[in-house]
């Protein structure tokens, strides 16, 4: 009896290969059943996310990884070159790999938390389908406690690693909770959408979108549950706003000191955070000289994201230590016996 892990991810396979192996919710149920019907496989869990597809299986004696790999490729009708596309781990290495995956150490965005839930879901699906027994049940339970320990005892998830996340972090530094705050988005591009959605996810209740093309403003506003404002009236709306995100394609400054000066009294000098993610910049740097204005441009946000990534990378050794320690003290059949 042997624990094996076979998979591919964003580091080993290009998107056109990954999408061939990616499985929908329904397909995953079928895949688990089919896996168990194949020769010599006693237990199985299949994990499929946008960046990885992995098979965790307990195989009996003779069955090797080549057979599993061939079976998977056959199922997915993949006939391309396999060299370097798949990775394979067994016994302890497989267990450690699963812990790394669940802890976000193996993710495209180091330390991301979504993967933990995805691993849990994958395990639950197999558990419900009676596809797991003594080995995988113990392994996954141990993995979840390792994931929690890594999250609580290291800084692997600290700091924002994206421009949108860094914007949220700064807004929270100024306002604390964003619940009930009002956001104005100037420009209707993808970055505007991402940043506005990140702020909404942290409690921003009202989002107004303004754009030279009113139709685009309406389109973005509708898609994120906000409301559109005509471009010639955004200045007056500024009095109610807490966070401004500027991301237009304009070749000149759109927001100038005069715009903010005009509404300072009406705002009772409340703090105003302005995030300029446009290149060329949309907000005149002199706006940042106004006392209650906190202005950040794309360079600052990128720098924050890079710093957070570096801090997370520094935590990897500590995470590895936790994983080793937890696997050492666990009694996991087919892993450390």
């Amino acid at each position: 009896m042997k624990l094996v892990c076979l998979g591919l991810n964003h580091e080993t396979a290009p998107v056109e290969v990954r999408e061939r192996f990616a499985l929908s919710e329904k397909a995953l149920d079928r895949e688990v059943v089919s896996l168990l019907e194949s020769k010599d496989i006693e237990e199985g869990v299949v994990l499929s996310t946008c960046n990885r597809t992995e098979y965790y299986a307990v195989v009996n004696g003779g069955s090797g990884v080549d057979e599993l790999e061939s079976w998977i490729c056959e199922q997915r009708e993949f006939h391309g070159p396999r060299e370097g596309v798949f990775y394979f781990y067994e016994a302890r290495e497989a267990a450690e790999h699963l812990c790394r995956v669940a802890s976000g150490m193996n993710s495209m965005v180091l330390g991301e938390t979504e993967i933990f839930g995805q691993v849990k879901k994958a395990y639950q699906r197999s558990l419900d389908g009676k596809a797991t027994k003594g080995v995988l049940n113990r392994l996954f339970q141990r993995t979840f406690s390792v994931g929690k320990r890594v999250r609580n005892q290291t800084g692997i998830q600290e700091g924002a690693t994206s421009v949108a996340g860094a914007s949220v972090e700064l807004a929270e530094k100024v306002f604390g909770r964003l619940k009930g705050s009002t956001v104005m988005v100037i420009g209707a591009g993808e970055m505007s959408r991402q940043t506005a959605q990140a702020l909404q996810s942290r409690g921003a209740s009202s989002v107004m979108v303004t754009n030279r093309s009113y139709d685009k403003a309406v389109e973005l506003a509708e898609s994120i549950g906000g409301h559109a404002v005509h471009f010639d009236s955004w200045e007056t709306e500024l009095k109610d706003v807490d966070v401004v995100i500027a991301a237009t394609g304009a070749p000149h400054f759109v927001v100038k000191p005069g715009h903010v000066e005009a509404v300072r009294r009406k705002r009772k000098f409340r703090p105003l955070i302005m995030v300029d993610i446009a290149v060329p910049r949309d907000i005149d740097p002199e706006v940042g000289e106004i006392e209650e204005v906190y202005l950040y441009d794309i360079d600052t946000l990128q720098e924050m994201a890079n710093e957070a990534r570096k801090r997370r990378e520094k935590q990897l050794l500590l995470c590895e230590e936790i994983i080793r320690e937890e696997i050492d003290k666990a009694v996991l059949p087919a892993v450390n016996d």
Partner: protein
Amino acid sequence: MAMEIGWIVIATILAAAGGVFGWRFHKGGQSRHLAFWGMAGAFACQLMALGWRGELRGQCPLSDIGEICLFLAWSLTFFYLVTGTTYRLSFLGVFTAPVVVILQGIALIPGSFDASPTQADTIDAWREAHAAFSVLSYGALALAAVAGVMFMILNRRLKRHDFKGGLVDGMPSVHRLVNAMARIALVGWIVLTIGVVSGGMMDGGKMIAHLLVATVTWVLYAVLLGVYFVRGLPGRQLAIGLIILFALSLIVFAKLG
């Protein structure tokens, strides 16, 4: 060693420990409750010392530099404990604790306490109330100034995009600090109002100069807070106003002796 000195020494150690615990909490290594309990322990010891001095004097112990510093440290700690819970500004402790330690350090300098205080023959209740409420209000106003200093540090770093070192991570938000400054100063001003009114009711004499300074201080705080609550004021200006007003009034009172 006099009884009060022993209590003040313990209070100083506990306040210093509260500051260290607070700092370590914000560095991620200690329970936040330790900072609170350090300051709470200091508060209890300050009460014991003040109680002892009160017994000796037979009146509110605010007659020498040691007693004034101790009373100020006590009121500062009192408002810290109240405010710390309400606004969850435990990081305020990191800034408050050193001020408490300094005040108590001054009280511990030999000669700060009158070694053989005279028992009061008669007690003017208004005068006692004036002195007690005025010093109590200074605890709140000192805390508002401490919050102002915190705001200035945070504001400077946020404006300069300086996020290194972790201090910004441990601090309350700008919004919360501005609210805290205004509300604590308002509480201090209300208490000072009681102090000033009590002063107006007391018998004349040598407290007139103190009352005059307290009244001017009261007016200046009223103007600052009035402008903030009615018209609005940028956080930085409010912080500067609170720091300058507190420092000025403290200097003037120190000169008056």
